[in-house]
């Protein structure tokens, strides 16, 4: 046990090294993993009878925008002061950031759980509940100024998710009931609850199972005119990433959380309160996942419908793993997912390749990140240190 703890320490030092020291080593495996994943994804495309080069060109154009369009837009803007063309050319890039926003929140949620040795499979349910709570506050309260209404709606979303996360946390801490089972159960309860709410109390009209639109005063402000949905949510997500980093690595409480995660027995003997830490972490993790749903509702959709969450909670597990449970790593991997997902829509319409290819690539990338030995072997890299690969704590103890 003590061995695991010390190797865990070592791992943390290397992953903290993103800020200083061995940047190359911290990034080279993920980068090569992503490249290898893309190459293998291309092979799958080729085998299924599509042209991978055309597909990746479409993916790139769909996620970053076409460079010629952007230059053209800039020229028109400087020549005439008309920014319509420029805004249109920026659409793909900003849309990728919009897609990445809930990923950042949800990834942080799972990563925070991992740091405390908790496996939060419930981000999906927390996401949904957060979305529903913020939508409710967003549409039901009328006539408030934005400065009050928007924070209130955000808070409602965070609290909804937090409660949903805290219940399994408390059950785990108090009764030892397994958080993996309970978060899965809470997911299903959330899905059913939302089915009921969307076809009953929260339904906007009798025809579609969707909530009414939120009031304009509860919408996250957008930075550009209409087709561009880029909004404040992205920066709130970045702020929270920094906040979680600060919490985990710069505060006593964060140290406790990491200690409990690394070795609960040792933490207990050191006088740390396991119950408090579990509940606290699941509360925060739930709040983050709730904010993921909230950001999607208040920033992008403005209403909630059935099947709203579209697998964010499960992708979040992948994100946390990809980012090695480090907040900044999560942001980077969320951006990657955002660009891939957003670009894939374009790829689907232009190259006729199903959007699901992205999941294939994601799965491969995770394998390579988790097994750096494969990457080292493939690219004959010898100098890299053998990384500690135990990220999670299994079913926990």
């Amino acid at each position, binding site marked *: *046990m003590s061995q695991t703890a010390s190797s865990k320490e070592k791992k943390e030092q290397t992953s903290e090294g993103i800020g200083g020291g061995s940047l190359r080593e911290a990034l080279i495996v993920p980068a090569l993993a992503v490249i290898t994943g893309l190459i293998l994804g291309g092979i*799958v495309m080729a085998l*299924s009878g599509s042209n991978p080069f055309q597909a990746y060109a479409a993916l790139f154009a769909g996620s970053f925008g076409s460079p010629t369009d952007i230059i053209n837009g800039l020229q028109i803007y400087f020549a005439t002061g008309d920014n319509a063309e420029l805004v249109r050319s920026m659409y793909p890039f900003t849309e990728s950031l919009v897609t990445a926003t809930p990923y950042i929140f949800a990834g942080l949620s799972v990563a925070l759980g991992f740091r405390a040795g908790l*496996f939060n*499979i419930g981000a999906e349910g927390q996401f949904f509940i957060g979305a529903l709570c913020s939508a409710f506050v967003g549409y039901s309260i009328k006539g408030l100024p934005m400065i009050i209404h928007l924070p209130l709606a955000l808070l409602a979303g965070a609290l909804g998710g937090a409660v949903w996360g805290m219940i399994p946390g408390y*059950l785990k801490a108090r*009764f*030892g*009931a*397994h958080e*993996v*089972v*309970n978060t*899965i*159960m*809470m*997911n*299903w*309860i959330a899905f*059913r*609850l939302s*089915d*009921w709410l969307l076809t*009953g109390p929260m339904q906007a009209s009798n025809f579609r199972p969707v909530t009414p639109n939120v009031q304009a005063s509860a919408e996250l402000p957008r930075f550009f005119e209409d087709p561009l949905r880029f909004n404040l949510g992205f920066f709130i997500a970045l702020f929270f990433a920094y906040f979680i980093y600060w919490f985990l690595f710069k505060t006593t409480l964060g140290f406790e959380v990491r200690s409990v995660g690394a070795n609960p*027995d040792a933490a207990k003997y050191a006088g740390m309160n396991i119950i408090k830490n579990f509940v606290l972490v699941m509360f925060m993790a739930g709040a983050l996942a709730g904010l993921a749903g909230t950001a999607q509702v208040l920033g992008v959709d403005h209403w909630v419908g059935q099947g709203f969450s579209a*697998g964010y909670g*499960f*992708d979040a*597990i*992948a994100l946390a*793993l990809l980012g090695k449970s480090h907040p900044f790593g999560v942001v980077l991997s969320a951006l990657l997912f955002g660009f891939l997902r957003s670009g894939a829509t374009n790829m689907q319409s232009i190259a006729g*390749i*199903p959007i*699901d*290819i*992205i*999941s*294939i*690539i*994601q*799965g*491969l990338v*995770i*394998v390579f990140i*988790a*097994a750096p*030995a*494969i990457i080292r072997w493939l690219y004959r890299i010898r100098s890299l240190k053998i990384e500690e*690969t*135990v*990220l*999670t*704590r*299994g*079913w926990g*103890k």
Partner: protein
Amino acid sequence: MTNTTIINPEAEKRKRISYGMTLLVTGILIYLFFGVNTQAGAQTTFGLNLLGSQAIPVADLIIPAQTAIYLMITIVVFVGAYQLARGVRSTGLLIGILAFTFVASFLTWAAQDKSFNLTGMLSSSLVRATPIALAALCGVLSERAAVINIGVEGIMLMTAQAAVVVATVTQNLYIGLIAAILLGGLVAAFHAFLVIRFKVDQIVSGVAINIFGAGFTSFISSKFLQSATDTLNNSGTFPIISIPLLSKIPVIGPTLFENNIIVYLTLILVIVIHILLFYTPWGLRTRAVGEHPKAADTLGVNVYLTRYVNVILSGMIAGLGGAYFTIGSVGRFDELMTAGKGFIGLAAMIFGKWNPIGAYASSLIFGFADSLQVKLQILRVPIPSEFLLMAPYIVTMIILTGVVGRAIPPAADGQPYEK
């Protein structure tokens, strides 16, 4: 990790009282929910014959609703009082009584003045429990050797698709079934290779399999299957096999002995795996590898080989589970059709304390709840069906909290082994 079972008289007493109180409260709840709302003269008809079954027909069970509910209340209150005063040793018995009285009163109330086919519901519970049970068995087998296989959902998706495509192309369901089982073993072998050879985090590898499986099957589905349903994705399903004589028994016959091959195989597997794990040298080695690999190694057990074998076998079971979704029930593949059943199977495994029979019993609870919800929608019960659908999940959480409590996995579960 500290798996000591010291009997603490204080805790025992507290447990006794809390169980007793729970039973008494259940009695009150049954009265408030169902007793009050049942008309005095109402009768509930429970159908015992299944349409198209070979069982000898029997008369339907017609009972006076109110009397039956009051009888249930009497039973639960009596057992509760006895528990408070003297204590019943078997907690399983208590939970059984609690669940039975509650569900029985609920059904009597819901179906008052109507007819409710009991046999049909039992039979469909068993069928719906099958994929969950197979996922749970997959977990049991691999985790007893200390390898977590969270990728069961992904394996089931891939094998479900493989089963239907192979069966459609070859026009032979059994070849489809074998293909699914082999593919399940292959994917699991890859998982084993990653976690044993490369010491990849087991949950990470499992998550990767899930994401890859979801992506790959959806990709194949939208690229090939949707445009060629008849030639690739339309296999038909396994026929119902009625076991001679046994299928003639009323109620039990249609439930247990009129099923398709996958349901039978599941029942057999539960028993076989239980015997293998607990009564054979192989099982002892497997459990030793799961609890204390170093000690097992010292005694000459090949830890790596045991893990490979167990994980591959577990993947084959997941493959059988995958085949159930397509060639075992609907005869075609739909995107993401496993719908979280793999994860529920993992919950059933933990709920059943890593024990094949326990896991199967837990799966039955989920299967029962699943089929109950469908039947109740037909009865038009004045409760939103969404809340009924939630019930099994809430019940699982309550039971997990109050009854099972600390589910203790095999001690080395999830840890790579280094010589």
